[in-house]
């Protein structure tokens, strides 16, 4: 078990009573997220889907590296690692319900 910090982005801080960083003792990314979820109800649903996989709209970084290029949720953690929850940001003017003249 290693003490690591999980950085919480502003859109998810309503689950952590405003805290931007949560410390947990965990050996893997999955374990860290699950501990976060037990401490702060509701937040895990925003990060993992019902089958326990990472949601499409969320990225997890350990340090500067996306867990996608590491071992995914099984990525092992070392003491002092920083896990960042990075919301996927997308959008654009494309609008199927925009007004059309004719």
């Amino acid at each position, binding site marked *: 078990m290693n003490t690591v910090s999980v950085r919480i982005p502003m*859109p998810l801080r309503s689950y952590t009573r405003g805290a931007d960083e949560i410390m947990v003792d965990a050996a893997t990314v999955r374990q860290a997220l699950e501990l976060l979820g037990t401490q702060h109800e509701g937040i895990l649903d925003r990060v993992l889907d019902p089958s326990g996989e990472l949601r499409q709209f969320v990225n997890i970084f350990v340090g500067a590296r996306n867990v996608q290029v590491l071992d995914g949720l099984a990525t092992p953690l070392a003491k002092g690692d920083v896990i960042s929850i990075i*919301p*996927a940001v997308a959008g654009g003017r494309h609008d199927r319900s925009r007004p059309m003249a004719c």
Partner: protein
Amino acid sequence: MTVRLPRNLRHALEAWAREDYPQEACGVLIGRQTGTEVAISDVVRGRNLNTERAPDRFELDPQDLLRAEERALSLGLDVVGIWHTHPDHPARPSETDRAHAWEAWIYLIVPVRKDEVGEPRAWRLNRNGFAEKELKS
């Protein structure tokens, strides 16, 4: 709630909007949020990963957002929102924007046409959809 965007930062956004036209440009807003105000103190330009549909879609490189988070942290600030452009389109959130938006963040939309950049508008998602927030310099 008011959103403060200093004039120099607005000029930076306008320049990027013009440069990337007719593609959508996007990036991150760094600043501080208090009860009644979001004060933007830095803007970051990100990469639009959606190259296939860049004229009407954007997808911010998550690496850029991570870097912006780290930069904000080092300044004692926060990532308070996202900016993006709407080429040839009003500065209102689209259905695509709504579908991908996160609560609590400010979404700043910069309308841009071939030869001019329009007034940016600030929006924030709540339970009923996007609500416009007053934008001041």
